[in-house]
């Protein structure tokens, strides 16, 4: 039987493309036979803008890359700045950075999970539950630095300010509630027959494929490879902490979902250890207002919720970076779209896009 192929534009304005992602797909009935991703609708020229800003001002640009997890962006940037200047932040500041980065990871994974289930067609209920928890993380961020989304909390050589007294009890009560909420989500979702039949075995990738495409983060770990920068290349104080790296088996949509849920559990345990270990002390190095690193280059990387986030900085000795190149995990994680989406149904395609958990602010920069 012959049938006519149909070309459909998914996006840039579509309920479930997570921003302004555009996919031009060719359909045979309901099945995707070819696709062409089109990026750039959210391009703001962050890398070029960075060349015009001072080293400290660039931190505000990093907030706007992956806006669901601004803390890890800040962290990656200030770490590469510190590498460039060959300084290290005080220990207390490093603990504060780790705590806020892990909170950011929980917030980002909550959004990822919520939108994944939303793409599965649950009428925004799980999304609202996830946002309820994320709201409390944003409250914590507000206590830390006064902002909720675009945080600019971290500074080269430390963090912005000392934590207020109400932050610690609020953090601990959040962690207690979050553990309970995670159990609740798992009881509602992980055993759900519809969720299982929609995600298990859908769009699997192998470890080799993922490595060839230099995919990182939960998507790589869901294929069964234990690769997490917090362990293989520990930065800040991660080598003082004990935690597991959750991995999957099949690299399918369900494993990606499960890896994120388990990473949230690990993040909670990391923050708890940090609360125990953190001691009073300095929070920022006494650096000049205008930083002038010696000419040279440095690459700093962190494990962001989406994968390996790196900043490659070149300095010519002036007050602004000569070049600031970002390694955006969201963009690089999209390289396997052909292998993941072609041959699957439209409905599966949407779920796979949800499970990749990319962020257009980071993809287009």
């Amino acid at each position, binding site marked *: 039987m012959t049938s006519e192929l*149909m070309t*459909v534009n998914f996006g840039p304005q*579509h*309920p*479930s493309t997570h921003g302004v992602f555009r996919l031009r797909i060719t*359909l*045979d*009935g*309901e*099945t995707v*036979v070819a696709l062409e991703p089109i990026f750039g609708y959210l391009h703001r020229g962050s890398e070029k803008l960075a060349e015009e800003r001072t080293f400290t001002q660039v931190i505000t640009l990093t907030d706007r890359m992956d806006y669901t997890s601004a803390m890890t962006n800040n962290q990656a940037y200030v770490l590469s700045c510190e590498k460039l200047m060959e300084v290290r932040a005080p220990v207390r500041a490093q603990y504060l950075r780790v705590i806020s980065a892990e909170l950011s990871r929980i917030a980002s994974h909550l959004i990822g999970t919520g939108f994944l*289930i*939303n*793409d*599965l*067609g*649950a*009428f*925004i*209920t799980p999304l*609202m*539950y996830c946002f*309820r928890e994320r709201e409390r993380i944003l409250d914590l961020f507000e206590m830390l630095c006064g902002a909720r989304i675009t945080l600019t909390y971290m500074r080269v050589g430390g963090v912005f300010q000392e934590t207020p007294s109400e932050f610690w009890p609020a953090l601990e009560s959040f962690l207690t509630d979050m553990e309970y909420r995670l159990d609740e989500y798992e009881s509602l979702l992980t055993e*759900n*027959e*519809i*969720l*299982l*039949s*929609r995600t*298990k*075995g*859908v769009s699997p990738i192998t470890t080799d494929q993922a490595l060839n495409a230099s995919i990182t983060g939960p998507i790589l770990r869901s294929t069964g490879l234990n690769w997490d920068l917090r362990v293989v290349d520990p930065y800040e104080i991660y080598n003082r902490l004990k935690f597991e790296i959750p991995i999957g088996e099949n690299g399918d949509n369900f494993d990606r979902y499960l890896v994120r849920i388990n990473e949230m559990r690990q993040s909670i345990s990391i923050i708890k250890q940090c609360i125990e270990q953190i001691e009073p002390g300095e929070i920022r190095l006494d650096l000049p207002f205008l930083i002038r690193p010696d000419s040279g280059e440095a690459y700093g990387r962190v494990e962001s919720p989406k994968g390996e986030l790196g900043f490659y900085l070149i300095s010519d000795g002036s007050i602004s970076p000569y070049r600031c190149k970002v390694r955006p995990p969201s963009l690089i994680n999209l390289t396997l779209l052909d292998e993941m989406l*072609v*041959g*699957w*149904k*439209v*409905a*599966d395609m*949407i779920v796979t896009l949800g499970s990749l958990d990319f962020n257009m602010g980071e993809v287009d920069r």
Partner: protein
Amino acid sequence: MLSDNLWFHNIYCFLYTGDTAISGCSDAIGLLPESANWMPYYIAGFSMVLVLINIFMIFGALYTYAERRLIGRFQSRLGPNRAGPFGILQPVADGIKLLTKESMIPDTADKPVYNLAPVIMLVPVILVVAVLPVGEGTFMTDLNVSLLFAISITALTTIAIFMAGFSTGNRFAMLGAMRAVAQLISYEVPVVLSTVGIILLTGSLSLVDMVEAQTVPFILVQPLAFLIFIIGSSAEMNRTPFDVVEAESEIIAGYHTEYGGMRFAMIQLAEYASVLVNSAIITTLFLSGWDGPVSFIPSPIWFLLKMFFMAFCFIWIRATLPRLRMDQIMSFAWKFLLPLSLLNIFVTASEVLYFGVNGLFTQNDLWIMSLINFGVAILGIVIFTKVMEIGTDSNNKYKYPV
């Protein structure tokens, strides 16, 4: 001729003057002069039509408010609460907003079909109200094939969705229409077959007879049929987990992507009113209709209470479950629901042969049948889930070209 329709009878006799032998009114009051004796018939009829249809349409509008409000509570948020007390005037505000929208027709649209589709969507929902026995002796008409009428007239919705999807020239709408035709026709089969058990038990296709036959509510006597009917009707109403026809995250709004303004409002009203109408049919078939345990509460109130409870269940399901995929929905209908409904027919027919005396059953017979049918339902569901492979096994990559 309409003597068992109390509502019609009372109004008619209140107005009619003259020979009681012709009118059948032994207690005629006679408000109108004898020369206007042709009028009471029409006045009584139109008053019923006006009241029932308006009640259902107003409930349909209020149902949109209830759904948004309840789903808001399910999702730990407030829901609409600005217009009027508790936001109760939200449907009015929505209606005014949609009425004042510019009426836009896309260039690619087939204009007559595009304009006609929302009407064809809404009309069957209103027509079904004609046969619903809302209370004891409170119905527009008691057709002797009213169940058949209800089922066949609601099936018209498929055509309306098809028209809407194909006439707009939008590809998402076309995908939605393709899905709609496949899904709605498939689910029509188990839904119709699940009612056969009730037809066998009552020996009639009239909804009034069915309510009167329910000395034991048929939800207990026909549990399997109830499950199939509730699943099938939620598929026919395009509600989660079967809402692939207008799957928001996949094909934006499905067949009504290109509709706006009052046409959109009509489609929405038809969808929400059809939830109420389907709840009413379920109430009539399985929850013993207007019959209530306490008699001092009027029968229409009992009917409405049960209907709202069923509508609440549909809201509950919508707020809870994710969506299935198209092929999973189809295999669920043909591999699971259809064999189960055939099993139900077989078991019920055997019971009717064994217990029935001239097609009549005592209450004890019905209780025994209820026990047997519950066992059959549990066994059937367990066995068919094992035998029929539904679920992750269908997740296979498709090689193109084949």
